[in-house]
């Protein structure tokens, strides 16, 4: 039975489990307060768990999936994070998050949004 034990061991190592995110954004200000056209602005995010911002990264994604790192700072409430966006022209964008939750799960999230002229 020794080779069966070997198979068992190898398979034990191979049995993988899903890597869906644990830290998720439960509220964001993008829905209530659209990003203004050609003006620097801030976006507020609320997470469902504590996050380690020093070990996390946030990107602004422009058309063509060009990514740039943006600053993320802790908000006043637990789990709240403030993102600083540069002035953005009209178009579609996304915020890509790589977040390290306090329970050790590194998860990714994506928030898509549009910058439009007021009234559009």
């Amino acid at each position, binding site marked *: 039975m020794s080779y069966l034990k070997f198979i068992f061991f190898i398979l034990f190592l*191979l049995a993988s489990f*899903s890597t869906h995110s644990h830290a998720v954004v439960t509220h964001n200000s993008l829905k209530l307060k659209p990003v203004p056209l050609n003006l620097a602005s801030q976006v507020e995010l609320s997470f469902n768990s504590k996050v380690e911002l020093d070990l996390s990264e946030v990107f602004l994604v422009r058309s063509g999936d060009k990514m740039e790192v943006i600053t993320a700072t802790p908000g006043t409430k637990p789990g709240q994070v403030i993102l600083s966006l540069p002035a953005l022209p009209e178009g579609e964008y996304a915020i890509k998050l790589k977040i390290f939750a306090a*329970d050790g799960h590194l998860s990714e999230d994506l928030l898509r949004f549009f910058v439009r002229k007021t009234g559009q």
Partner: protein
Amino acid sequence: MEGIANYLDSLIGGIDLTFYSIVVGGLIWGLLVLRPWQDGTHYNNTLLNNTVNLIHFGSKALTITQITQIGLKIWLMVATLGKSPFPAFFNTVQFQAGLLRASLAFVLAVFIRQFLKSNTRSKLYWQISTLIILPLVISGGWLVHGASRLEDREFLMTLTVTHQIAAAIWVGGIFQLLSIWRLKKHNSIAIELWPLLLKRFSLLGIAAVLILLATGTPLAWYNIASFKGLVGAGYGNLLMVKVIMMCLALGFAYLNRQAVNSYFENRSLYVLTTRVPYYIEVETLILLTILFTAASLASQPPAVDIPHLTASFEEVLNMFAPRMPRWESPTHEALIAGEAGRVAIVGQIPSEAATAWSDYNHNIAGIFLTTMSFFAMLSYFPRFSWAKYWPIGFMALGIFLFFRSDAESWPLGPLGFWESTFNNGEILQHRIATFLVFGLGLLEVRARINGHNQALPYAFPILAAFGGMMLLAHSHVGFEPKSAFLIQVGHTMMGVFSLILACGRWLELKLDSPGKNVAGFISVFALFQIGVILMFYREPLY
């Protein structure tokens, strides 16, 4: 290497829980079931050494696993963030609690080696060992889901740690029973010990199940809070899988208890030696799957946090609705043409060709499996003995999947084999699944040709069980949680049936009649069910 780092990081949680159970459950077994310091016990040194050795092995393995877990976390952060996580990582609770846990497991390993191994009948040393694991168990509270919650943190951490202890009692005890059965088979222990220890553990097992329910119910309620959350989110779905598997494990535990009660009435060892050990083997397989599912559950966002991303009951039901299988595949060119839009972050365009390609793959795989289950049923009739080679179908399915699973990579697509395998967790899982399916067929066909090989037939249920584990974990990582969940829900059901297929086949090989026939039928029926789910599979378009 991000894919493989992510993959290993998600895997290590289940391994950690397994070794934790061997240690914690093993010590509680020693204190409450074995009680080797009492007079009048018939324990010989072989039994006691075996028990302590298992716990010692568990503590060493837990130390290594815990350190590996920290190492993997660092690797994952380097791979994902593209920069060093130091010194910030040193300040995280993860690092500090993980290191403390590893240190305590190491202290326990040293203590067992130096003292308990040479004084296996000493109550004092068993108690000191248990005292050492107390801070180890408590430190685990900072490594669970609840530790990062913003509200009710202490309450959730306490419930989870208690839940883990109860699970460890059950799983650790089962590992000890398997070890004792091995000694009994080799006539290394007194014959009456087997029923005696089974009986004693049975009571402890019931207590463990009650604690599991008492702690699991409020945890589930807190994290799910609605029927929609239970059926329409990954967290609720995996919890239901856990409940189904626990019911299966409890079924076997019930059969064992009945057998023990029967022994103490009529003193016949027949059932206790010809069925119970195999029920325990299957129970172990199910419990291990539960531990890995529990580890997976801890990485899911609680359903209560994502009501806007939760699927409705009707949407879930629709995933299983009967429909005509897709017979025609889009061309590879059409698939590749839609890939750039499908994977784009900004300006994403759903690809109908990609969805149709995936539907075709799943539906054809379903036809393979239902046809195989039909031949498997036929093979039970002597006239159709040639049908016993039905597992050839798995080899054909493996080849089909190799070409079709990830069409964007080698051999059909532009991405290289190694590059795609190690940089994408999903492709890595597909590759492993393909290898498993092919290996499953190859080994089982060889076993059927070479009927005298005693060990080879067991490769099939082992591979099927791990295939099931992979299905339970099948990850479509992306940024569309609702669509990803709707894909996941079909895969988790297939995972449950794969486990049933494996357990049924294992018992078919081990039991005598009529049990083996019942188990064999259940096994083939489970294969048929997987085929049906795959035949009706439709991937949500996103």
